[in-house]
């Protein structure tokens, strides 16, 4: 130490201890002082430095920045400052850290002494200071960037962001807020936030803020909630508001101020959507309630099901007790309906049905099963079409189901009753026809039995009256039978060879006497040639024309009736028009008639005047529909009526067309034949024929026997089927023909015939039946009969059919049948 003190002056020591680099140069830049700090920094010790030239040591100082200013300082004694520069330091000094940077120095140069011979250069190390500045600057830059980012976020945020002071003054108002409230930021900044609130919230707000300020009691801070905002235009808007409290350190002030940031989201659309959903849910609920339908919504993947309260309560369960899972429903489905339900659901799952619909039974809480109609649909499927969600309803249809069953039973009862009615009618007709056979037969016999010219006129009149009324009764019975067939839908028609011209002639000849009696003529006209034969039902065609012409006669007092026929080739139909000059009908009557309702004449009064069951026209219309098209009616009151019927003719290929002239000549020929002397007629066509008549009624036994015997036959009678079979089996000479009544005691005709055929009896058997229905005929043939004759018996027809079979052997019969 002493040595140092010896060699260095006190001032020098002081300079050494300064935290500055000190260097003193003379005006020639020769170093005269180099303190310890500088020695350390530059690693040039004082002893080495002193005497060196500074410019030689640091040549960069010769640059204008340094040299001229230093020279000038020597001249003017003015101090010079060199600000710190990393690129141009006064004296380049490497830092002793690892940065590799050089020391930043603030250099000052002052001239010492009055002689201006020396300049003292002080170097202040400001490296650390500047580093701090740089760091601070970077920090600030970062902060600024983040601030501008925050500002950008604030500005572009979709939610409105409003900050207010603890006094309620608006501090910031982003553009979403501008949009939400309709104010620009400049309009509201600094103003109290109350202006964004409607009454009474606006009035309460100050109080709330003040209260919070004192008590810290939070109402809304830290949690979001829905509030009402007020726009600039006065409109209120539902908004979701969440408020957070921020303590911000304001610049230049040590005290922190409280700020509240409110984030607001417009709920208008959300509210609307929510309301729409609520409304539609309400509507659905009302509809479901009104129809008492229970709703279910089934998550198929998890099995979770939402059962609506109605669904649950209608089954008598408590809402809490029902597991919201599909297994609950599965468990209460009636065991008999399980597979049906599963099947239909599966079918719908697989997309084979557009909807699921199923009637099934569910067990109520009381254990009773009630019927439900389930209707539903898979509403969500995955990409592969796998069902994910199904929604549907169940409605209680128990009452309806019971009603349906009752209806079903009622229908069954009605059908049974109707069946009974049909059977009754069939039986009645049989019961009536049987005596009618006798009445008509004996009446005929009375006419033929003796010389009527000798009979007293009143007796002749009586016989005639019996015959006419019996025929009338027969017509009525036939009509009732037909009607019952129509009502039962059992009416059928044939398609066989039919000769229309012949039928017209027959109708005319049958009704001629009736017309003659009223002084009316019946004319037949052909507008076109007509086919000799057509494919139709001759019996039914005759019936239609008989009815129409008969009606015409009935309702015509003066004039004529014309049957006009023509072939309409375009429709392939034969048109028959029955034109009368009768009383005609008013349009109302015509319409009433044209409805062809049963038991309906033009009006009730006509029935009394003109008689008739009123069934004929209805039957004719139905028959006409079956044979072609229905009856058309044209009529003019007081002038007359025209009833038109169009009949399908079938295939006419190869069928001869008859001109009116040809028809007339044929008719004449037929009439001439009829008028031939009786001598030509074989009065005994059944001469030598053996006939067995199986018939239980004594009157008919006698009548039929009489007729057959009159025709020359030898007749034996059997009272029932059993006797008939016995007689046939025991007969020495076989019978030529068996006439078999079908309704007989002990063994009826069907069973007797069947038995005979089983025993290989081959002779002809002709059924006699009062059953005029088509199925009866078939029933006879099925039993083994060869043909069939309907009671009451038409004498010539009976003789003709018996005659036919007498002369045929088995093979011929079978040939005929086929």
């Amino acid at each position, binding site marked *: 130490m002493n040595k140092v003190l010896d060699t260095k002056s006190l001032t020098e020591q002081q300079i050494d201890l300064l935290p500055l680099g000190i260097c003193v140069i003379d005006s020639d830049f020769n170093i005269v002082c180099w303190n310890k700090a500088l020695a350390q920094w530059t690693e040039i010790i004082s002893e080495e430095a002193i005497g060196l030239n500074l410019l030689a040591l640091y040549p960069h100082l010769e640059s204008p*920045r340094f040299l*001229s200013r230093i020279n*000038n300082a020597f001249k003017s*004694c*003015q*101090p*010079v*400052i060199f600000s710190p520069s990393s690129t141009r330091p006064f004296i380049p000094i490497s830092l002793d850290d690892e940065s590799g940077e050089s020391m930043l120095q603030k250099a000052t140069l*002052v001239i010492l002494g009055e002689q201006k011979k020396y300049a003292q250069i002080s170097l202040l190390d400001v490296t650390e200071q500047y580093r701090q500045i740089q760091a601070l600057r970077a920090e*600030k830059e970062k902060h600024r960037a983040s601030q501008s980012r925050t500002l950008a976020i604030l500005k572009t945020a979709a939610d409105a962001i409003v900050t207010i002071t603890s006094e309620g003054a608006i501090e910031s108002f982003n553009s979403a807020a501008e949009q939400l409230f309709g104010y620009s930021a400049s309009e509201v900044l600094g103003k109290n936030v109350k202006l964004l609130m409607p009454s009474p919230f606006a009035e309460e707000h100050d109080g709330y803020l003040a209260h919070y300020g004192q008590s810290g009691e939070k109402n809304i801070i830290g949690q979001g909630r829905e509030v009402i905002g007020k726009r600039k235009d006065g409109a209120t808007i539902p908004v979701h508001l969440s408020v957070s409290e921020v303590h911000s350190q304001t610049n230049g002030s040590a005290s922190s101020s409280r700020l509240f940031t409110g984030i607001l989201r417009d709920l208008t659309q959300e509210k609307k959507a929510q309301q729409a959903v609520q409304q539609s849910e309400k509507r659905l609920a009302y509809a479901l309630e009104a129809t008492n339908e229970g709703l279910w919504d089934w998550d198929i993947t998890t099995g979770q099901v939402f059962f609506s309260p109605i669904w649950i309560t209608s089954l008598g369960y408590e809402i809490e007790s029902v597991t919201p899972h599909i297994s609950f429903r599965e468990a209460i489905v009636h065991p008999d309906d399980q597979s049906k339900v599963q099947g239909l659901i599966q079918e719908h799952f697989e997309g084979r049905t557009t909807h699921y619909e199923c009637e099934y039974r569910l067990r109520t809480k009381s254990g009773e099963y009630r019927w439900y109609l389930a209707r539903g649909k898979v509403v969500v499927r995955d990409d592969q079409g796998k069902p994910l969600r199904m929604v549907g309803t169940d409605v209680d249809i128990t009452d309806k189901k019971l009603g349906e069953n009752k209806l079903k039973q009622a229908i069954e009862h009605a059908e049974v009753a109707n069946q009974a009615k049909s059977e009754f009618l069939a039986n009645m007709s049989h019961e009536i026809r049987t005596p009618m056979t006798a009445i008509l037969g004996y009446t005929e016999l009375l006419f033929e039995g003796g010389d009527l010219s000798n009979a007293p006129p009143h007796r002749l009149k009586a016989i005639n009256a019996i015959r006419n009324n019996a025929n009338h009764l027969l017509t009525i019975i036939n009509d009732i039978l037909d009607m019952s067939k129509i009502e039962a839908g059992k009416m059928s028609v044939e398609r066989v060879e039919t000769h229309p011209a012949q039928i017209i002639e027959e109708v005319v000849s049958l009704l001629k006497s009736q017309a003659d009696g009223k002084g009316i003529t019946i004319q037949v006209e052909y507008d076109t040639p007509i086919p000799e034969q057509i494919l139709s039902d001759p019996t039914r065609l005759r019936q239609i024309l008989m009815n129409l012409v008969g009606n015409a006669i009935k309702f015509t007092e003066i004039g004529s009736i014309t049957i006009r026929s023509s072939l309409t080739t375009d429709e392939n139909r034969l048109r028959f028009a029955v034109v009368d000059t009768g009383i005609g009908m008013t349009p109302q009557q015509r319409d009433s008639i044209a409805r062809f309702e049963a038991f309906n004449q033009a009006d009730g009064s006509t029935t009394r005047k003109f008689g008739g069951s009123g069934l004929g026209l209805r039957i004719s219309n139905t028959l006409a529909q079956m044979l072609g098209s229905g009856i058309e009616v044209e009529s003019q009151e007081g002038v007359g009526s025209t009833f038109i019927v169009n009949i399908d003719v079938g295939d006419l290929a190869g069928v001869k067309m008859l001109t009116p002239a040809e028809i007339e000549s044929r008719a004449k020929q037929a009439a001439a034949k009829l008028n031939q002397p009786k001598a030509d007629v074989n009065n005994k066509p059944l001469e030598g024929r053996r006939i067995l008549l199986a018939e239980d009624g004594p009157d008919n036994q006698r009548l039929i026997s009489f007729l057959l015997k009159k025709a020359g036959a030898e007749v034996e009678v059997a009272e029932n089927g059993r006797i008939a079979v016995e007689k046939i089996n025991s007969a020495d000479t076989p019978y030529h023909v068996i006439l078999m009544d079908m309704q007989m005691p002990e063994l009826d005709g069907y069973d007797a015939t069947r038995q005979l055929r089983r025993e290989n009896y081959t002779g002809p058997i002709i059924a006699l039946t009062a059953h005029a229905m088509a199925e009866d005929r078939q029933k006879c043939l099925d039993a083994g009969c060869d043909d069939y004759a309907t009671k009451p018996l038409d004498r010539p027809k009976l003789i003709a059919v018996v005659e036919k079979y007498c002369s045929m052997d088995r093979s011929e019969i079978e040939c005929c049948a086929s």
Partner: protein
Amino acid sequence: MKLNEIQLDALTEIINIGTGQAANSLSELTGSRIELSVPCLHVCGNSDLGDLAEKFGLDFSTLIQQSFEGDVSGQALLAFAKDSAFDLARTVGGIETDDDELDEELHGILEEIGNIVLNSVMGSVANLLECNLAYTLPKIRSEKSFGKIIGNCANNTSQSETMILFADTAVNIASRDIRGSLLLLFETGDIRVLLSALLPDSVV
């Protein structure tokens, strides 16, 4: 004390010589052309300065102060609006970062600029007076110190009034026009010394 037109012209000329030298120095320092001009010199008392500043729309928020003593004594000040001051410092220092009033680095540069300008101007005055003046190192002062600087000057000069030579100064650097003020505060007597040195033939 009022100065006539000739006196003012003469003083303006002296200042212009100084600023011309300063511009050269700054140009050398930065390697780019810098112009400094003092179009017009005003004289006022310290009490009138506020009105004058207002009239010219000047701002003394950032000051670079340098005191001098000798045959004449006073203060030389360079004043800028804060933004202008930092703008100047950044341009001269080649610093790209924005602002900052706390930034020591910018203050350092401003000190050096002030040192160059004030040295040149005062050098020009000292040459005129053929005297040596003693200077303090330039120092950055804030606006708050301004009143005190002027007041100090007044106090130092006991009863005599402070005269302020005031020049509206335009700095053109890198095509930017930066406006500032140059203020020289003298005691009234010292102005007379100055004027007599400047205009030896006129009666002051």
